[in-house]
């Protein structure tokens, strides 16, 4: 197959035709921070954390496919500033109480904030009123922590062949909704792939919180993206 040559931060690399910047970079051990992109699902392009400067324009690396000679800027002060701002937007948009969240140490939003050295949100908290859905026997949904990344919507459809979640409303009123009045009305099972797909503590298994001791959790020692970057060293 013909390979496409392009550069990320001046380093030349190759991509397969149709490959996204995000995937091509990962194959070469370059980590592009991202949140809504998940495994091989159709990219959502919504969180914008993976924004890169691509031939002069800002594009989402999870969506934009590589073209011959493309010049991608990933690790620059400008891009860092954009990503930090977007992460902070996600923090202040919800109600994130990391100190008691069972996802702490395993949370991708938190891990990205750690990676970028964020000590406090740069924007005022919006403190929305959000709901907590405890109706399901084995899984709960805490809208306070939802970042509207759409992973659950797509995983439920594409991997679980169900349709447990979708977005309703628009703009700042947009929120995640379950197929029915409450989670218990859906055909969600605790064994579904969707349960593990939530990057934050919004969709969580019941009765298994805090199982991993502090210090041994996924992001306690190494920053998010470390596993990809290790391949590069």
């Amino acid at each position, binding site marked *: 197959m013909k390979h496409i040559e392009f550069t990320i931060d001046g380093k030349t690399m190759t991509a397969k035709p149709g490959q996204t910047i995000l995937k091509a970079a990962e194959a070469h051990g370059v980590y592009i921070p991202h949140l809504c992109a998940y495994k091989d699902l159709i990219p959502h392009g919504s969180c914008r954390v993976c924004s890169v400067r691509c031939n002069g324009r800002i594009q989402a690396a999870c969506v934009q496919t590589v073209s011959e000679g493309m010049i991608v800027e990933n690790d620059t002060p400008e891009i860092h500033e954009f990503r930090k701002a977007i992460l902070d937007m996600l923090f202040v948009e919800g109600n994130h109480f*990391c*100190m008691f969240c069972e996802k702490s140490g395993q949370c991708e939003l938190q891990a990205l*904030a750690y990676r970028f050295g964020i*000590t*406090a949100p740069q924007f005022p908290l919006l*403190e*929305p009123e959000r709901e907590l859905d405890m109706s399901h026997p084995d899984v709960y949904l805490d809208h306070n922590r939802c970042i509207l990344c759409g992973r659950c919507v797509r995983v439920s459809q594409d991997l679980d062949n169900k349709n447990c979640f979708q977005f309703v409303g628009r703009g700042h009123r947009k929120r995640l909704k379950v197929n029915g009045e409450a989670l218990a009305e859906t055909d969600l099972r605790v064994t579904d792939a969707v349960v593990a797909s939530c990057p934050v503590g919004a969709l969580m298994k019941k009765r298994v919180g805090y199982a991993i001791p502090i210090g041994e959790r996924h992001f306690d020692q190494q920053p998010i993206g470390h596993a990809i970057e290790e391949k590069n060293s």
Partner: protein
Amino acid sequence: MTSSQEATNHPEKPRIATVSLAGCFGCHMSILDIDERILALAEIVDFARSPINDYKTFDGRCTVGIIEGGCCNEENVHVLEDFRKNCDVLVSLGDCAINGGIPAMRNNIPLRECLEEAYLKSPGVYNPSGTIPNDEELPLLLNRVYPCNEVVKIDHFIPGCPPPADAIFEVLSALLAGRTPAIAYGDLKYD
């Protein structure tokens, strides 16, 4: 601990003030948790207004003010304002100071409901008079719990619940040495 007497004897020594507002004192425990390094710190700084030495008022300008907890009542605001006026640099220490923390969980619940739940309705409450405490000495609660940086300008932040002692030590050392603090990856925590 140094005394104010010594502080005035060494006017060149930087002075540190600390306070716990709507917090649990866990962050102050973490300050003490810098262990024997606190002795080295005591060599180069004086502690002014602080629960560590129980001085309750400012008696001069301080280099660094460390704030634990957010503002849940009028007195917190008053104290924080006092810190801002008396300190060159203010540091928000811990999640409560930074984003309100656990106390801020009440922020979407009307104050009246919070008080009724706490003093009248919740299981296990023994309150035969059925009154909600209202002594003149009790500071009035705010409509919500405010992060410190929504009340006064804050210069530095050390997140964590509580922040690791190493993070506190790094930020203090950096500020005293006049460099920008850089908290190590493993010491930057929100829990």
